[in-house]
């Protein structure tokens, strides 16, 4: 397993500059838009965007490289089991996502005093809220990735890409339906947090539930991916 992770990390490392560059660009654009609008209520938007896009970008980049020049077939001939290849992929995407979410949150927090100094006062979000927003967006994005990853282990990259778009759409619909109309969840949350809950308690609760759901989905997805990848001809 350690060998598989080391091998996978060797590739992930090369993705960091390009994905971080895109993230930084989006962060700067969002911050500039806020500054031009004098909008101070969306200080976590940059962190939110970076955290949400990183897992998907990492997954598609790695899947694309798998399909390039026969690397997938060559890797299958290395003394690494397919189970370890799959587990390493899940672990590396998760590690990469966490690092990028932390970086996004940090960038956002660092930007608060800078924005304050140019007269755009941050009234809404605190450091804690930025961190929680970043974590939750990363977790929801990771869930989306875990949902479609088995497709990338089962099919060729292009086919998996096409199929995953459909799954993403279903996932987004599910989230919207759940958050907008499925009151029992919000009622349950409010009953746990109490009446007039502290936003930090609510934030922790949401992040905790999202983290739990991500771990469960990740474990199930990893098991399915391992099963389909073992029987795949390379």
């Amino acid at each position: 397993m350690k060998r598989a992770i080391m091998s996978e990390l060797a590739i992930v490392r090369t993705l960091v500059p390009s994905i971080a560059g895109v993230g930084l660009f989006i962060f700067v654009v969002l911050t500039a838009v806020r500054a031009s609008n004098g909008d101070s209520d969306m200080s976590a938007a940059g962190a939110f965007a970076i955290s949400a896009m990183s897992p998907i970008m990492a997954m598609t980049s790695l899947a694309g490289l798998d399909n390039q020049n026969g690397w997938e077939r060559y890797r299958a001939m290395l003394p690494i089991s397919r189970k370890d290849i799959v587990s390493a992929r899940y672990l590396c995407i998760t590690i990469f996502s966490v690092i990028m979410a932390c970086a996004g949150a940090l960038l956002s927090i660092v930007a608060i005093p800078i924005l304050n100094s140019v007269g755009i006062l941050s009234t809404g979000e605190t450091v804690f809220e930025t961190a929680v927003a970043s974590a939750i967006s990363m977790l929801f994005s990771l869930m989306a990735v875990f949902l479609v990853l088995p497709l990338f282990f089962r099919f060729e990259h292009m086919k998996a890409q096409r199929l995953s778009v459909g799954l993403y759409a279903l996932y987004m619909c599910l989230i919207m339906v759940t958050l907008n109309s499925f009151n029992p969840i919000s009622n349950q949350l409010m009953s746990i947090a109490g009446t007039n809950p502290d936003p930090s308690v609510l934030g922790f609760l949401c992040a905790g539930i999202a983290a739990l759901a991500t771990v469960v989905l990740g474990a199930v997805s990893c098991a399915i991916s391992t099963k389909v990848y073992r029987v795949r001809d390379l």
Partner: protein
Amino acid sequence: MQNLLELKGVSRRVSGRFSLRDVTLAVEPGQIVGFVGANGAGKTTTIRAALGLIKLDAGEVHLFGQHCGADAPDELQRHLRSRVGLVLDTCPFPSTLKVGQIEALVGSAYPTWDRETFAGFINRFGLDPKTKVKDLSRGMGMKLQLACALSHNAKLLVLDEATAGLDPMAREELLDELLAFVADGQRSVLLSSHITSDLDRAADRVICIDNGSIVFDLPREDITDRAGIAHCTQAQAAELMACVEGTRAARHAYSVDVLVPNHREVLEAFPEIPCDRATIDDYLRFMLKGALK
């Protein structure tokens, strides 16, 4: 001595139009085995089957004497694969990586990886560690793969069309490396190629596959030293083919070329018929396209 690689009766339906059928071959220690055939004949599929990358409908694969198919236990596959080096026709490493980063990618997978050996090969092959994989020429990409394949104490090298597209100097260098690799008599090479001149120089055995089936499996000397091409008239060809077993003929407008298994015997028995030595190319052409007696 134990065969390093052995396929017994391997069959696998790949598509409606192509399948491997009862493929049996062996790679003995100290040998360079040339694996030839036309494009689409089944060379790569056979190698995939040999390395456990595809499931088999029938047959067995033994690596270093142990059963090793796609269904073998993970631990056994890991152990056996650590002793195999692979060189493909295109450089398989992710294009975003630099030559110097390939060691972290591949070396970390092998328990027997030797950093000094790898650095030595990189230096000897003139590869710049700062060059990105996507900027490597075909020859350099092949050398990088070869450096990886030779840096973990592999016992068996498998080259799948590795010489295709290489210039003559690069092919020469590759063949020198392969000859040095098998020199100790313990290690072997399975070299898939349709450039038969490479095999004329290096191969100990030549195995030919066509349409998913093995056509012949012969020591190289039986082809390049014993077999011959007799240049006959129609009447001579008829007489020769009636007398000699295992001939094949290629008919031209005014003559007939006949592949004979032993050109010396033919020269003795039919001194009036000119008979040259056959090359692997000739042999392949006659076996795949020539008419049987």
